[in-house]
């Protein structure tokens, strides 16, 4: 119990230090956050224009797209603020940053995830919430569903990041490929699921879980139902557990030194 409390305290301190570090670059912080919000808005213009001309697309209306967009943006924003180190995991593995973390008495994965914070994430979170509000789905009544959806989405994004960037444990320099997979996940999650056919749809709920990042969380907000919520929670937790196992396996391999080709 004490151990858990200490770990939470440590996690909180990590986030606080990250925020301080980001604020130290005050100007850049604001600019990055603002521009990300702007970026999301301009991307959405495409849907707004299209939906003016065709109000329904295989059952999806503009409000549905807004919720989808909002939950992915907010989930992504949450990821890169609280667990911003995930995008640099490959680098941390390759450059031996893990060595320093291994000499400290804290969970290595948690520490590695918390090493960075991307200020643009605040812009993502803000614009995400604004999109959901714009769709008319944000109220005190729907707030719990929104929180659940955004957190679950973020958990799946983090889990995927851990697996993609953690491939560095086995394959060495994977940053480019891992980033491609990461962007692929986000790209697919931003498009309405009815657009995708059978095999692809199956893949988007399994190997590349864009369905758990965008579609299912959006459905939980738009038309909350207990089975959907349960599926979302269980799915998100399963992916997270899987990702942690992958990381631990990678760490064991790291400790065995197999990835080294030189020594000194």
């Amino acid at each position, binding site marked *: 119990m004490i151990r858990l409390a200490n770990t939470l305290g440590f996690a909180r301190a990590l986030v606080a230090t990250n925020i301080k570090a980001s604020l130290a670059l005050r100007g850049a912080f604001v600019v990055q956050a603002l521009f990300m919000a702007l970026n999301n808005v301009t991307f959405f213009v495409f849907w707004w224009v299209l939906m003016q001309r065709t109000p329904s697309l295989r059952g999806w209306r503009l409000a549905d797209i807004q919720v989808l967009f909002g939950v992915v943006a907010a989930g992504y924003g949450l990821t890169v603020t609280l667990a911003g180190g995930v995008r640099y995991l490959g680098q941390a593995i390759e450059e031996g940053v893990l060595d320093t973390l291994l000499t400290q008495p804290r969970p290595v994965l948690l520490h590695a995830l918390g090493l960075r914070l991307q200020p643009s994430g605040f812009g993502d979170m803000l614009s995400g919430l604004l999109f959901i509000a714009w769709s008319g789905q944000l109220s005190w009544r729907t707030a719990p569903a929104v929180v659940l959806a955004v957190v679950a989405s973020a958990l799946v994004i983090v889990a995927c990041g851990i697996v993609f960037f953690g491939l560095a444990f086995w394959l060495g320099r994977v940053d480019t490929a891992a980033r491609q997979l990461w962007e692929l996940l986000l790209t697919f999650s931003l498009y309405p699921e009815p657009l995708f056919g059978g095999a692809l749809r199956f893949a988007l709920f399994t190997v590349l879980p864009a369905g758990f990042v965008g579609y299912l969380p959006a459905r939980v907000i738009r038309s909350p139902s207990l089975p959907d919520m349960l599926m979302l929670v269980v799915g998100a937790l399963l992916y997270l557990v899987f990702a942690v196992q992958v990381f631990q396996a990678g760490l064991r391999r790291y400790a065995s030194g197999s990835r080294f*080709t030189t020594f000194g």
Partner: protein
Amino acid sequence: MQPAVELRELCKSFRVRRPRAGGLGRRLSSLFAPRTEAVPAVDRLSFSIAAGERVAFIGPNGAGKSTTLKLLAGILQPDAGEVRVLGFVPSRQRTELAFQIGTVFGQRSQLWYQLPPRDTFDLLGRVYDIERREHARRIETLTSVFALGSLMNTPVRHLSLGERMRCEIAASLLHSPRMLFLDEPTIGLDVSAKAAIRELLLAESEREGRTLLLTSHDTGDMESVCERVIVIHQGRLLWDDSIGALRKSFLTAKRVTFWSEAERLELMLPGVRVVASGTHRTELEIASDVTPLGQVVDAALRQSSIKDMVIEDAPLDEVIRALYAHAERGCVT
């Protein structure tokens, strides 16, 4: 009393991929069924370090120093053999050990770049579960001992390398570890900064009875801070004794500098080599087992009136280089 560090027949090899030479077919098969070779990095290494000792751990590049350090810190798992650090088995009790050790990697920083050191110290307080009052007390002590004063509130990116290093070492001591591992702590520092760091390490260790294990390419670090030196080469122990003993038994050379009235001294004696010369100044290296020192001095006095004379041991650098050279030739001591 239990030793701080105990290694027994410690072994660690790395699997290195040996690409198959030849055409596309062979190279493809190399991708799917790679031929790997076990390259030993640490080979039946055994030594122990008592609590409070200050040990220099040296060897040429590729000798296995960093690997050994990582095995001791719990970063790597050994293949065979036993290792205990402060009573813990590093690979199995990494977290418990982590509370008791501090590490300073010369080329890597644990200070957050954009923030003043104070913020990193606060975070480290949470990393090591240091109680708030104790944490404040430790910071005050370290600030005074390391003369950190105004540095504490200056963003790390504005600090000089020497100032940063002082903060790094202070940070590694925040949780009062019983043992400190230092990997090239003075690399890149100027002479005065190096001297300051060495003094601090020595003083801290003596005061707190802290065990130090230091790797460095700078023999000055060794001589100023450590009492004992362990030399490894190709993963094996080459030498383990005090620094004085290293010098005495390994190399019997002396350096003598004469300031003479004559412009130059010509001493044709066996085992005597001119290292440097200038007007009225001659520096010689003397193999004192070939020609006794007294004989050389007599010869010099016969040639010219000597105004001044300095006798020194051969630089430690050369001693160590000679040690490696002996090892290369297969003459292990």
